């Protein structure tokens, strides 16, 4: 039976909505302190170079320059990293990618500091560059980090069953290669951080920091202070999507080094160009799939080889690619699987965590592949997915048996296809002939039979994609989260989680959990600012783990305090064990008792009786296990399922793709924050649609062309059509009331669904993301030379 909720799942508006809508919310760049200085970065426009010497003599006496900060000023670790310490704070020996920073100038006026930068003389020797990940493991290629002896960052193998046998038993074999592009997080707020020296008390950092605890660890190592002397406060974060982690740790460390040296607050604030230049991005993948299947549609074997371009630094590559190896087959039960996922170093911009985290790439590949199988067998996309899709008790590619939750893959698939009348539309659009099928790539002009009236050039298409996604960190790391909860004498509440608000609405979600548990409303809950000195380390706010893990900790804390209140009531009114207490509508209701007691009075009473109403809640994930050699094990303790259907119009004359409607059906478990959940779907789908159609960071020998929003295009309100979110709440034994995750699944499917829709329209498959004009029209990506908009005169 389903529990009746009072606050959970109701449309509760954002806890921080008022501050944000009035512009009062303070983002990092909105802070200003007395005596504050600014720092600007010294870089060279080289992809790979040995730095011989840097001559600062011209700026040493410059009025605008208070201080020059170099690696010599670093008291502690000079190289840091999330997993491997391979990234220097200042790259004054060798530059391995154009975003690298050699040193900083600190002063009052950034404009004058920037012009001082050009007076610094840098003597360097360019080194051979490596920008093609396919050449990374070639012994002739330069080593990006010679001390590591190899350009291999990580290799994740997975072996299940007998792949040869699987192919032998197959009636058909299909081999395809897919590629996905480098993309930028494109949070609208560029990076900003302020370091404030506190003398004996260490240092305080306020910044646009996604994970205050990771930042604290790295800053402490760099400035050589114990953790308790480094206080990290998260300012309102203007979007992150996984992107304000490594970069912000390093920026914070640089600001801290400078602040300690000049003994004044120091701010670093990036321009959009610097942000795109230096921050890490989503991994481009090259994905080779070989699949064997029966004429019945049953897949017998899948062999997958994936190469991820990690760029110049390791960052989160091992974890990102680990998720890929777990999910690479897609949500299908396949007996024989043989997967290799490798991440390699190159001189390209480095890549790391980004919403989706190693899943949008394989989802694009395996969901394109499923449609190919269907077409080859004369089936429709729904049938082939039903035949192979995961069900309760299915064994995944990693050998894990799916249990303890509703395996709702086919439910979301059915819901989405019924909602959109998928099969009828798919058949109809497929029949309408398209001119692009007959298109000759070598002669990019239309012949007479190909030319038709511009309006008739528009063709409609429909496509779908499904996925499953492991929740939280899985076997990537220890998974636990904390929360601080304190009820005041008047019944108002302080709440603080160790996980961070990144704009996703986590504060609201957590407030709802407390309100539900204590039977109160959310407006009496005050959410404290995220501060590493106030709450235990709860790991990173990644992997859509906030609701599941952080929410679990919040529920635990609320349960502890509710139990104490219950005990108080029992003692005070000498209740019998059989008598029940219910917390609801700001009241504690006692069975057989005439008058309920208000929550406020109860808290007052607790204060008078000396009951402790503050606690730390804790949630630790159930155990998972993993065998590195075979890629077998219970990778995640639970999974979520989603299906998206894209309906598009394609202009065959110009290659323009119009996104008419996207229907997104997701099972995130129980929905706690309804408005937040729908917001995640709208946002995730729009990002995914951008990934599918427009977004791309291209490089010319490692140098990025799209450094601002004039060329790095994300969808505007006018470019995205209707989005229809549908939520199916599956049962789950873990998480607060069975709530799981939603943030990332919403994004990973959209590009694949769009690509399948465009294929339905044009009868032609596309193997390379994004499906931009040239890809659609010419079937290949053509790399432009750089031209920036604006006046040169």
């Amino acid at each position, binding site marked *: 039976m389903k529990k009746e909720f009072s606050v959970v799942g109701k449309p509760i508006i954002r806890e921080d909505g008022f501050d944000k*809508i009035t512009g009062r919310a303070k983002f990092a760049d909105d802070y200003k302190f007395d005596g504050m200085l600014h720092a600007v970065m010294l870089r060279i426009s080289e992809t790979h170079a040995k730095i011989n010497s840097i001559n600062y003599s011209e700026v040493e006496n410059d009025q605008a320059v208070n201080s020059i900060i170099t690696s010599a000023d670093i008291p502690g670790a000079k190289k840091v990293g999330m997993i491997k310490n391979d990234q220097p704070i200042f790259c004054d020996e060798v530059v391995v990618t154009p975003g690298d920073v050699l040193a900083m100038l600190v002063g009052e006026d950034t404009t004058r500091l920037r012009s001082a930068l050009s007076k610094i003389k840098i003597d360097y020797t360019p080194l051979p560059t490596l920008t093609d990940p396919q050449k990374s493991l070639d012994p002739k290629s330069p080593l990006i980090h010679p001390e590591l002896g190899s350009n291999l960052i990580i290799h994740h193998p997975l072996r299940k069953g007998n792949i040869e046998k699987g192919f032998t038993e197959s009636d058909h074999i299909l081999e395809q290669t897919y590629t996905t592009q480098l993309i930028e997080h494109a949070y*609208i707020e560029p990076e900003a951080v302020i370091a404030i020296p506190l003398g004996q008390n260490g240092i305080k950092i306020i910044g646009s920091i996604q994970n205050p605890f990771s930042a604290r660890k790295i800053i402490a190592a760099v400035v050589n202070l114990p953790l308790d002397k480094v206080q990290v406060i998260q300012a309102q*974060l203007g979007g992150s999507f996984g992107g304000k982690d490594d970069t912000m740790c390093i920026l914070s460390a640089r600001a801290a080094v400078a602040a300690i040296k000049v003994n004044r607050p120091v701010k670093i604030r990036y321009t959009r160009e610097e942000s795109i230049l230096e921050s890490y991005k989503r991994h481009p993948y090259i994905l080779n799939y070989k699949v064997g299947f029966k004429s019945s549609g049953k897949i017998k074997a899948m062999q997958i080889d994936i190469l991820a371009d990690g760029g110049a630094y390791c960052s989160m590559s091992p974890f990102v690619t680990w998720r890929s190896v777990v999910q690479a087959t897609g949500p299908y039960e396949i007996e024989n699987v043989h997967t290799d996922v490798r991440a390699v170093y190159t001189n390209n911009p480095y890549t790391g965590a980004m919403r989706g985290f190693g899943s949008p790439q394989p989802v694009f590949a395996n969901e394109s592949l499923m449609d190919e199988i269907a077409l080859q067998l004369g089936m429709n996309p729904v049938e082939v997915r039903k035949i192979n899709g995961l069900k309760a008790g299915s064994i995944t590619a990693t050998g894990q048996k799916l249990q303890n939750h509703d395996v709702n893959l086919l439910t979301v698939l059915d819901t989405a296809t019924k909602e959109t009348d998928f099969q009828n539309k798919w058949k109809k659009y497929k029949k309408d002939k398209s001119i692009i099928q007959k298109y000759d790539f070598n002669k990019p002009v239309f012949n007479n039979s190909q030319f038709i009236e511009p309006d008739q050039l528009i063709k409609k298409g429909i496509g779908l994609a499904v996925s499953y996604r492991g929740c939280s960190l899985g076997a990537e790391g220890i998974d636990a989260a904390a929360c601080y909860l304190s009820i005041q004498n008047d019944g108002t509440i302080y709440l603080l989680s160790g996980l961070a608000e990144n704009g*996703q609405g986590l504060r609201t979600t957590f407030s709802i959990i407390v309100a539900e548990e204590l039977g109160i409303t959310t407006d009496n809950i005050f959410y404290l600012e995220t501060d590493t000195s106030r709450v235990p380390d709860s790991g990173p706010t990644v992997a859509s783990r906030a609701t599941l893990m952080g929410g679990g900790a919040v529920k635990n804390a609320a349960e502890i305090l509710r139990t104490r209140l219950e005990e108080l009531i029992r003692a005070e009114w000498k209740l019998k064990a059989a008598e029940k207490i219910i917390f609801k509508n700001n009241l504690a209701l006692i069975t057989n008792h005439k008058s309920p007691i208000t929550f406020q009075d109860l808290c007052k009473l607790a204060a008078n009786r000396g009951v402790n109403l503050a606690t730390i809640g804790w949630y630790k994930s159930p155990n998972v296990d993993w065998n590195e050699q075979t890629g077998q094990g219970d990778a995640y303790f639970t999974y979520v399922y989603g299906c998206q259907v894209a309906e598009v119009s394609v202009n065959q004359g110009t290659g*323009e793709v119009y996104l008419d409607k996207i229907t997104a059906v997701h099972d995130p478990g129980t929905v706690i924050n309804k408005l937040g959940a729908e917001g995640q*779907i709208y946002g*995730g789908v729009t990002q995914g649609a951008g990934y599918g159609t427009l977004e791309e960071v291209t490089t010319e020998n490692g140098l990025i062309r799209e450094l601002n929003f*004039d060329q790095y295009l994300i969808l505007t309100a006018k470019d995205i059509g209707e989005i229809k979110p549908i939520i199916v709440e599956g049962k789950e034994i873990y998480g607060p009331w069975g709530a799981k995750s939603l943030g990332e699944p919403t994004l990973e499917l959209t590009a694949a669904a769009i690509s399948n829709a465009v294929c339905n329209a044009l009868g032609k498959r596309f193997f390379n993301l994004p499906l931009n004009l040239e890809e659609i029209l010419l079937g290949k990506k053509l790399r432009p*030379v750089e031209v920036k908009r604006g*006046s040169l005169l």
Partner: protein
Amino acid sequence: MINFILNDLNISTDLPPTIVLLDFIRKEKMLTGTKEGCREGDCGACTVLLGELVKGTVKYKSVNSCLMPLGDASGKHVVTVEGINQKELSPVQATMVDEGGTQCGFCTPGFVVSMTGYFLNCSNLNTDDAIESLGGNICRCTGYGGIKRAASDSISIFENGKSDNGNHLENLISLKFIPDYFRGIKKRLEKISTNHKSVEKKSNVIISGGTDLYVQRWESLVGSKGNLISQNKKLSGISRIGKQINIGSAATIEEIKTSKLLQKYFPKWNNYLDLFGSLPIRNRATIGGNIVNASPIGDMVNILLALNSTVHLKDGKKKRSILLKNFYKGYKSLDKKKNEIVDKITFLTPSKNSLFNFEKISKRTYLDIASVNSSVYAESKSGKISNIHISAGGVAPIPLYLNNTCNYLKNKTIDTETIRNAAEISLKEISPISDARGSAEYKSLLLRQLFYAHFIKLFPQLVDPEKLL
């Protein structure tokens, strides 16, 4: 001294008129609700409203404060999100929160300002136009779902709450869309306007809307003596004198887009210019800037080329005129002396038997520079062309007038064969370069496609699409 009103506050500043308004707002006035996301007009986080006295009322428009010189605020009312805030949330703000229109909140003040600007500007409300007015604001978090619903909810609140005999401003004030200090702005502006001295300075750097200049060169402009011309009344206005249309060089693209005069001659005028930038860009961008910037893919230039326009230049008392198609010498090089400024642009009113069409393809449909654009103007009688002008953008280092193609088509009767030949000629006239907007190969293909589209649209009886080629 630059005098203006910032929200409810009278401002007098002697800071250089060339610094951007955004820096004044954030750094000098510490009004941090206005955000900086790109500093080049592409994100809208810095959007503010600019109120100006026009014929006795205050007209508001949204602008990107990151590209606007402070000097152009002179005599105006600048409104940031702080100037919209009241004790309680305005309907725009409240519906944005209720509908989930804000997540991280960084883009949010920009959206609030743009949407409030829509209500200030327009009494004939509908959701599509409201969304159109948000075309210059991008959001990475919300996917715009909540924002679009907020727009439509706010419209309902206004429609249900307005009093029919009240004027628009009073309705907005009584429904709390804007604070009541807006009521007194008109009187205050009248005082300031009469007091304010022109901030123009003699200088070689002519700054009009600044939407091109500040994108590339804001740092070098700061503190320089720019000649701010966008407020110069002598350079403004759109009029018809006899058979000639005159457009002042400082006329903005939005003024040109909404000009009743031009809409009369070109029925689809409004649709063409919908594809130009975003509303806040169009509110600042000028025709003179578009011409002098000499971008090969300028949209206004492209249209003006096909109207065979004349550019009128002046340098003090010295004046001269030159056909626009002869104005461009090479990549970003013009037949213009340093001290010459563009005074106005003129072209003949389209004749009765004329047809016009404009086509633009860009990577992103809205708020994007063209990959390729093209315009055609043709006078014909029963299919015989007596006069024709065709332009093509993005296919050469300059905005191109297709001379040979036009010559070929003159005095020909339109049929499929002729158009096929003409397209071949056009492809020989162009020299596309690969740039950020597309490869050369792709651009040739697009131009051909647009070329056909022109004639199929304009002469549907004479050109058989099936037989073309």
